[in-house]
């Protein structure tokens, strides 16, 4: 097993899969960089550094810079997927679903159903998301709940390099449109990555910790924040079942319910405003399906019902913190 960070895991997985499968193409703004400039192409290899080397290796037909036209980027991915390719489209910031939603939601997400199950649209859309870089209200959002709500789309959020590889490989070998969320503050996270073929099935959550007193369900950057909270709680003898969902659609209900049936106490942590969120989704599923096991009201740790602010102090106050997670766990435990 090699050690690498999430950024590298993504680049290498893309390269390996493109090698294996000619139908995979990559497109987006500056995924190469330098088109039409004196400096020449491959100037950047992706604004997040996730696609360097692909252009040199696979050439201009398969690694494609586009104008700033997100609807056309996603729409072209949808059309190319219908026409037999496996496009990987990059939305440089997940917030840009605002200018491309129709092609995600009403188009690629619905083709198969509307067309009577006769088509496949194996497009992967990479959405770079999340707060933590003081990029303010339009460049920091976690829109996975919006995507999770949409039938026809799958929603995937790796939090480790191994999962980045496993989930991306799975996305590229599956036949459904996948929203592949990459948290901008997690790119540097390092870890071991299995060599060779490594697929991580969707709908199979990762048990990060097993503690038995309280269940924390979360995803994305909030997994590591929850781990920090767990460390504090462990010091006080409190054991947490920490579940990293890996994919929110499909959802591993079983893992969640199994744990809550043991612990009876649920904390959901979600880097998002509270309303109609993933937090509310998980809490409601647990309330509906593990009602008799619940010993305390589900705790939802989310941001406030407000856009994400710019200033460091404000962004920090907006994002759920390890401290708030810890508190929520203690509240869940305190309830009798």
């Amino acid at each position: 097993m090699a050690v690498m960070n999430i950024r590298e895991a993504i680049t290498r997985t893309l390269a390996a899969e493109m090698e294996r499968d000619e139908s995979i193409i990559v497109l987006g703004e500056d995924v190469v960089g330098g088109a039409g400039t004196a400096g020449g192409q491959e100037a950047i290899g992706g604004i997040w550094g996730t696609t360097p080397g692909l252009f040199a290796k696979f050439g201009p037909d398969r690694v494609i810079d586009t104008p700033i036209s997100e609807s056309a980027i996603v729409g072209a991915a949808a059309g190319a997927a219908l026409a037999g390719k496996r496009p990987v489209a990059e939305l440089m910031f997940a917030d840009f679903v605002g200018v491309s939603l129709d092609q995600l939601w009403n188009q690629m997400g619905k083709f198969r159903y509307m067309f009577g199950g006769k088509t496949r649209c194996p497009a992967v859309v990479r959405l770079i998301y999340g707060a933590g870089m003081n990029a303010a209200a339009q460049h920091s959002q976690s829109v996975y709940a919006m995507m999770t709500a949409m039938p026809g789309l799958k929603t995937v959020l790796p939090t480790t390099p191994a999962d980045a590889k496993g989930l991306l490989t799975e996305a590229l070998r599956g036949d459904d449109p996948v929203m592949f969320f990459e948290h901008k503050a997690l790119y540097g996270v390092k870890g071991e990555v299995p060599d060779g073929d490594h697929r991580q099935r969707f709908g199979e959550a990762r048990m990060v910790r097993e503690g038995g007193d309280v269940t924390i369900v979360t995803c994305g950057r909030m997994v590591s924040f929850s781990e920090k909270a767990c460390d504090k709680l462990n010091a006080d003898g409190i054991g947490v079942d920490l579940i990293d969902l890996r994919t929110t659609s499909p959802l591993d209900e079983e893992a969640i319910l199994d744990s809550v049936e043991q612990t009876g106490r649920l904390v959901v942590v979600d880097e998002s405003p509270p309303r109609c969120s993933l937090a509310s989704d998980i809490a409601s599923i647990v309330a509906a399906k593990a009602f008799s096991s619940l010993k305390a009201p589900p705790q939802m740790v989310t941001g406030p019902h407000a856009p994400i602010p710019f200033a460091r102090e404000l962004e920090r106050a907006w994002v759920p913190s390890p401290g708030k997670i810890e508190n929520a766990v203690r509240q869940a435990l305190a309830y009798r």
Partner: protein
Amino acid sequence: MQMSRDELIGAYRRMATIRQFEMRLHDEIKSGEIAGFTHLYCGQEAAAVGVCDHLDDDDYIVSTHRGHGHCIAKGCDVKGMMKEIYGRRDGLCKGRGGSMHIADLSKGMLGANGIVGAGAPQAVGAALSAKLDRKGKVAIAFSGDGACNQGTTFEAMNMAVVLKVPAIFVFENNHYSEHTGVDYAVGTNRDIASRAEAFGMKAWRANGCDYFDTYSTMRELLDHVRGGGGPAAIELDTERFYGHFEGDPQRYRGPGELDRLWAERDCLKNFRARVGEGGLLDLAELDRVDAEVSQLIDEATSEARAAPPPDPAHVAEDVYVEY
């Protein structure tokens, strides 16, 4: 433009099929048995057929809310379509899609679309795929004069030029988007072709009520695109003979407008006149075609009427390939 007898009869058959399909729907809808919104293509037959007669199953088209004509021109099964519009289990899309969402990938028909302008970027993607496959295939986006104001259409045109893909933007200018006139909605005095040109592609214009003009102009256009000339556009001046959707009171029409259109701008009539004058065909042959088509549409309708509805238990199937 030389066409064989068979080609001429084929073209007429496809146009007549669309015409009769749509006129039958116009009648059937009154019975209340057909649900949802239905947008009839009647009047524009020469456009769809004049374009698609150059294509085979490996060429792609994306269509619009007014898609029946494109489907038929591209070879979709007429009976399957009728069942779909009736919302039947064995419809082309199992009754899930209906009039606005008919697709048949095996025919290169990537889908009608209820979202105005949504198809154009998809055609760019299909054209990108065609370009990589290097088999000389093209992808066509049908758009209306209304759709040509949607941001997605503009983005698609620019992107097609940038990516140098064999995408073709066919603008069927029937002078209306719903109840609004093209003179109002297209800021450039209804000149859609020159707007396309300004995106950096070559653009043509043709009479979309004249099969021969559409067909021969498309030949030129396709020579350009297949010859590696990059994407292209064509504006077809055409007419919609019925309302925007079935039920539209059409108060936006001028006095006598519809009568004039049926008299002067009927592509089927024009086709007959042309082949008659030129002595290209015996018109009796076309009468025979009409009768055959009529029989087909009769069958399609009665089979659709009699066909079983979808099973409600299957409402949530076919959302994913695997979930």
